[in-house]
């Protein structure tokens, strides 16, 4: 990740990152339940979540806390079976990544690749079973989208998985986010494909839909992948892009039907960083106010010193807003 144009100001205190469990009390309780291995409580809570985005955020808080044996004991026929087995798949993928390491592909040894692929293949086979038995299980399709990228099964297959997911969970932000990842040049796609997908979302997603935030993910990824800050900012400041960011804002955070659930902070993070980067600090101000001094790990994906960058941009926005 390259350094951001806003250099660290010495006296600025970095704003720490907040995990969903820090931001939402019920997720804190969920994590505690999972830590105790209380599957019944975990399953009851997760079963009550209606949106795939909420489910994905909640599961993200406990995937590393539950024991494999606890999950394997959930019998087929149990209402939480698909959830438990998807989580098993997710945990298998995480173990695969642990073997591979998060470094550059060129630094990964042959043995590490073999272990990585073996784990991802095993996870995929668990999830093939889950989606075969319960095609409406969006969480499993989501993980299959991620595996699709990990073992290079191709764009069309990623899109097919996204479509299968969307058939039951239309316009989930997290699914769109992962499709944006897949469509980027670094995974063999192109920025045209990312832009097409963004336009498709704007054309098809109903107002208030959290899935529209994936359009913003496309812009942030484009900014991050550019060769220099100047170039990246110039891309964001293109009138069509600025207009699109406002269009998304009008249909999400500024729209009465918008129900972000656990994506509340993510949504405001996107607008806070994007409006700041395009130089419209006044537009960024309400989002920094909504964030109330919190930030999600999203900043870490796009800024070298996320805490400092956040503090700087916030101060500029609030000074003018």
């Amino acid at each position: 990740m390259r350094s951001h144009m806003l250099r660290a100001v010495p006296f600025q205190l970095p704003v720490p990152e907040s995990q969903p469990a820090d931001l939402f009390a019920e997720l804190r309780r969920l994590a505690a339940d999972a830590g105790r291995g209380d599957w019944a409580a975990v399953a009851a809570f997760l079963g009550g979540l209606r949106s795939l985005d909420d489910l994905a955020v909640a599961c993200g808080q406990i995937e590393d806390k539950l024991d494999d044996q606890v999950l394997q004991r959930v019998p087929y026929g149990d209402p939480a079976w698909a959830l438990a087995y998807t989580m098993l798949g997710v945990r298998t993928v995480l173990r695969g990544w642990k073997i591979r390491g998060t470094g550059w592909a060129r630094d990964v040894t042959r043995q590490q690749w073999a272990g990585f692929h073996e784990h991802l293949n095993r996870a995929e086979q668990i999830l093939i079973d889950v989606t075969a038995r319960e095609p409406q299980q969006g969480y499993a399709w989501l993980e299959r989208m991620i595996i699709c990228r990990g073992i290079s099964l191709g764009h069309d297959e990623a899109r097919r998985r996204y479509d299968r997911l969307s058939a039951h969970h239309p316009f989930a932000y997290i699914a769109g986010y992962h499709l944006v990842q897949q469509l980027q040049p670094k995974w063999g796609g192109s920025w045209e494909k990312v832009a097409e997908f963004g336009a498709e979302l704007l054309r098809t997603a109903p107002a208030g839909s959290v899935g529209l935030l994936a359009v913003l993910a496309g812009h942030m990824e484009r900014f991050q992948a550019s060769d220099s800050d100047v170039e990246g900012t110039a891309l964001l400041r293109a009138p069509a892009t600025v207009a699109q960011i406002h269009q998304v804002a009008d249909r999400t955070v500024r729209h009465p039907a918008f129900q972000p659930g656990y994506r509340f902070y993510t949504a405001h993070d996107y607008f806070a960083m994007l409006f700041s980067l395009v130089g419209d600090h006044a537009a960024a101000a309400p989002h920094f106010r909504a964030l109330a001094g919190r930030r999600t790990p999203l900043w870490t994906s796009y800024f070298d010193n996320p805490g400092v960058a956040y503090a700087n941009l916030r101060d500029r926005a609030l000074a003018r807003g």
Partner: protein
Amino acid sequence: MLRHTEVDGVPTLLAPGSGPMVAGLTFRVGRVDEGLARTGITHLVEHLALHRHGVADHHNGVTGGIVTHFHLRGAEADIVRSLELVCDSLSDLPVERLETEKAILRAEAAGRADGVTALLPLWRYGAQHFGLVSYPEWGVDQLSADDVRAWAHTWFTRENAVLWISGDRVPAGLRLRLPGGGRRRPVPPAATVLPSTPAYFAGPNGGVVFDGLMRRHTAGTLFGGMLERELLRALRQEGGLSTTASASYDPRGDGFAVVTAFADAPPERQDAVLGGFVDVLAGFRVGRIEQADLDAVRAKREEALAHPDVHAGRLSGLATDLLTGEPVLSVDELHAELRAVTLDGIHDAALQVTGSGLLQVPPGHRADWAGFTAAPATSSETIPGYTFRSVDGSGAALVLGAEGVSLVEGERRVTVRFRTCAAVHAWPDGARQLIGLDGITVRIEPTLFAAPPDTAARIDAAVDPALVVRMPARTPDAIPRPYTPAQPPPTRLFPAASPDPNLVLVPGAQQGLPQPLIQPQDPAAFPAGRFAARPGRTRPGTAQLIIMIAMFAAGLVFLSCAGVLTIASVEGIEPGEEEFRDVAWYVIVTIAWTGTLTLLGWAGYLLVRRLRS
């Protein structure tokens, strides 16, 4: 409805039909019985047997995998005459037509497009029995009049035949003068070469193909229908990925049946068609099967059974059942069986079929991620024997042993043992291609390996002469040359690994020249990077040439320095400096001469090596 009788010792099936009379004579012989070196012999006999009818009549022959049918349609008197002609011809083949019919078969083969499912048998069964249907008619060229006569007298006998007629009686005066003294021939064993299933291999472009086995049961026909329905729903209606998808259920003749499925895949949608196909199979495997789908497929099947000509239409299939010793079911019995099939029965069929499945994926794709094992394209061991390196220095090696031959390239090897050899293609220029019963192929090109000149003769002597297929002479440009750097660099990994005769036909060639598993003349056959310098074996490349010239140059510089210093030391010794020169001067001169000799010597060694190679 269905009556059994006998005509001249030939079991006969009668069933009513509307329209003109249809009759047929079916024999329990087909491509699975031939052997790789004789592929096409049944087809040739079928052509010769029909010759006397001329081509304009409504007579036809079909050479299948396990049976050969002669179909006749027309007035009763014509059918009687035609059946008698076929039988007389089979007793006494018009062998004077042999070369003409061979030419017709070659033309037919050239014009025949292979079906999308053509490769599956070869990968499942190798180059014998049920696998033979994947191979071209390689045997046709060298079959003699005696060969075809013997084949007819062994297989086209009254004991190995069934007559079937749409009508209520056998036409008066019908005589079947077939060769006698034979016996009812069982279908050959269906031995698989797949070490584990479900398995996969990469086939040509076009789509995703799958087959799997189950014990023969009416549930299979319904499962096939449901599989087709689900493929169409998932890949065409829902995903817009494929334009066609199909599935079929075909009895194999040994109590088992094969369920085959196909979905086409445009090049830009191959990943998604493969993914969707895998998910459809998984849905059946886990038992996500809807009663409504079963009912819909069953209703369609029952509707087909309600057709007025159903009895006549089933006759050729029933003749096959009779010949293979399987139960011959009436339409009522079939109805009852269809009605008895439950969702559990479908799931049981699905479990058998998916468990024994073989998946053909588009080129460059894999299916290990979905739990399919790669079908073997190489051998597990190398034959003990003498090793001959490839002359192009690629590191490939040919091993000639007393028991067989191997080609070795890195960790990959292909081996054909003489005693399990299915056929040997022999070219006049000395090239030999051995195909093992497991479908693994080894091609020996004399121009590519420094093997002894009598290699071809030794191989010919080591295998059964009946397995040697003489190939026509090749044009010089069809004979491979060693790899040279001027050719395009290697790009693919072991692509010729498929023992697939269809991929191997040399474009435009009348006689399909089969390609070997490892193709030393094709740089693409070697993993990328294999042509990097291997000390001691490779021909010096450009880099080495530059090093050699640089050494010569440096050597000359040292030589001139050493010369000047030596001359200086002999000539102008200045007084007072002798003390210094005694030590340092001579050290410097020695270093100069040592450097000269080392550099020039090394460069000279490289030059000699280059000239020798």
